[in-house]
């Protein structure tokens, strides 16, 4: 890949101590619908929003870079006294609402509670009051000889964030996904066993639309892992399971969508069967394409593209790190096999991206069938440098800069990635660092 990129790595603005270090781990990344704003959530319950600077002719090199726009504490740790349980403040997901006025709104969720935040700007203030002076003190009326009309004068930009709705007590189990409906009025939240439908304006009730909890918990063999609304059809949504299946549901068919409209499942490959077959087939993320015609899923070793019209198997399968197939036993032992990687489409649905280990992330061009491995790290990326493709060697001929499988760092995992809705700008979360890469030259992937 010879895309020219600029890199910005941004750390938390807070001082580093033993608490902050853990709290800084980025747990979700999401662009808004125009790509002007980028939100990140972290393990400490904080949300940081970045805004893209408008391109400036004076400084062509700094065009369109992202700066911190707002930071706020979305969720606090809670203690449930009755269950003697601590509810983590970690932000699991952020989803932006489509912008309907000057304000921006987003939903953020931890394991149990979803919150709607409104972000507004204030860049003017009224000056020239008749009854108050500039410091706000009441004037002596005898000194007022004429009336003036207060005027709005510019002031330093102030970004104000306020919680507008709190959607609590809807989930017994841990929330893994939220998705805003294309109707802009409702959204859904999914936990391990249930999916609820909410109205954005109503917080005291929600509709349960999927419930896979068995009557006898001993029969539990499958959980919900991710879910998303169709981008155009407000009645359709998909949810994925720990067994690797996808269920497309139609809310017009029934109030409780336990019966799917379509079931997408790939039969197990008998030649690759192992004790870990089910674990590696567990879908960790599902995303509709922008066109609405395809779905992208991520399981432990692959990303797959599914056509909504074909349930029997995916239309495309890409190997993310097949060299790990022979290491599944160790990865099971150290729990890495349970890592949940996300996946993303580019704006035109022609390229897909997902993270891996060793701070590597992978991109696959669906048209040319080419793929590339890149690394997000300060050591290998200087600002404005070209990202160098990386290679993992699995024995045999080894090139100079190759990394061997055994020297991969499994603690450096890129679980969360996001792609700008229209341009070739990607956001990569590498533990507690955020990398934003931009493609300046209109180049094709090699």
């Amino acid at each position: 890949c010879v895309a020219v990129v600029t890199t910005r790595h941004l750390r938390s603005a807070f001082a580093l101590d033993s608490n902050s270090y853990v709290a800084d781990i980025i747990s979700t990344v999401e662009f808004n619908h125009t790509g002007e704003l980028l939100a990140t959530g972290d393990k400490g319950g904080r949300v940081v929003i970045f805004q893209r600077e408008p391109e400036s002719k004076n400084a062509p090199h700094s065009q369109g870079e992202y700066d911190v726009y707002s930071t706020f504490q979305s969720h606090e740790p809670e203690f449930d006294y009755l269950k003697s349980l601590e509810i983590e403040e970690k932000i699991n997901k952020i989803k932006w609402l489509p912008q309907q006025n000057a304000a921006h709104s987003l939903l953020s969720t931890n394991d149990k509670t979803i919150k709607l935040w409104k972000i507004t700007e204030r860049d003017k203030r009224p000056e020239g009051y008749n009854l108050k002076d500039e410091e706000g003190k009441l004037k002596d009326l005898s000194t007022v000889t004429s009336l003036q009309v207060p005027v709005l004068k510019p002031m330093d930009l102030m970004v104000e964030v306020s919680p507008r709705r709190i959607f609590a007590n809807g989930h017994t189990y841990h929330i893994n996904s939220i998705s805003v409906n294309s109707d802009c009025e409702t959204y859904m939240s999914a936990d391990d066993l249930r999916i609820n439908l909410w109205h954005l304006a109503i917080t005291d009730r929600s509709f349960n639309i999927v419930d896979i909890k068995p009557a006898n918990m001993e029969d539990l063999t499958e959980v919900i892992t991710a879910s998303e609304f169709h981008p155009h059809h407000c009645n359709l949504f998909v949810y994925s399971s720990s067994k690797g299946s996808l269920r497309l549901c139609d809310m017009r068919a029934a109030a409780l969508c336990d019966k799917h409209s379509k079931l997408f499942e790939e039969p197990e490959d008998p030649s690759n069967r192992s004790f870990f077959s089910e674990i590696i087939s567990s879908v960790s993320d599902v995303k509709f394409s922008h066109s609405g015609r395809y779905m992208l899923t991520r399981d432990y070793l692959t990303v797959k593209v599914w056509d909504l019209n074909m349930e029997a198997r995916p239309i495309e399968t890409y190997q993310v790190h097949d060299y790990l197939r022979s290491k599944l036993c160790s990865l099971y032992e150290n729990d890495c096999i349970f890592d949940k990687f996300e996946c993303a489409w580019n704006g035109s649905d022609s390229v897909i991206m997902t993270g891996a280990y060793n701070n590597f992330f992978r991109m696959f061009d669906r048209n040319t069938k080419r793929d590339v491995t890149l690394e997000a790290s300060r050591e290998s990326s200087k600002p404005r440098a070209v990202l160098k493709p990386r290679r993992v060697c699995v024995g045999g001929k080894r090139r100079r800069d190759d990394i061997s499988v055994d020297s991969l760092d499994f603690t450096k995992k890129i679980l969360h990635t996001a792609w700008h809705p229209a341009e070739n700008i990607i956001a990569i979360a590498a533990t507690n660092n955020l990398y934003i890469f931009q493609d300046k030259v209109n180049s094709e992937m090699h």
Partner: protein
Amino acid sequence: MLSKGLKRKREEEEEKESLAVDALWLDPGHAAVAQAPPAAASSSLFDLSVLKLHHSLQQSEPDLRHLVLVVNTLRRIQASMAPAAALPPVPSPPAAPSMADNLLASSDAALSASMASLLEDLSHIEGLSQAPQPLADEGPPGRSMGGAAPSLGALDLLGPATGCLLDDGLEGLFEDIDTSMYDNELWAPASEGLKPGPEDEPGKEEAPELDEAELDYLMDVLVGTQALERPPGPGR
């Protein structure tokens, strides 16, 4: 906070343990990884899976996905180790005291006991009127000693109750109960639908120390808050 401290501690211990074993597994010289005969590899995988299951259930709130995947993997390993015995979730009495059957019996007992504890834990979450089983004190292997049938009996008992008392009727259930004690600001809002009723009192015979300690702690917290709110006076 009790639970907060406990949780962090367990996580640290888990990390240390998994890191130590990790070093063992990733060592290319380790025989088990590369050249172990299938039976031995299955057996160590089996032990590893049981260990994981145990760890998972000891969490204050087990990760359901992790738990389900480990249990399913354990079933697969089990099936490959003792292909003669069928693999029902309901364990039948062990036929002959062969090693495989013993493994099957104990693992099935462990599985159903662990599932029993999971069920009870989750029933407690749903606000059912059953005594919560403290998982820290009595892990699944302890309770499986009684054999599979008793724990299944317990599950049957919980079964119909689970069906009746799901979700929506909870607020109606607790209408008559005096909840003034719980109107204190200290109580997290999430507990609103899960106020324990008087039905919770009987049946708390198992591990009374833990529950009493919990109650004592809660009473201390309440008394401490009320003492703050009340103006200082004589006595008390």
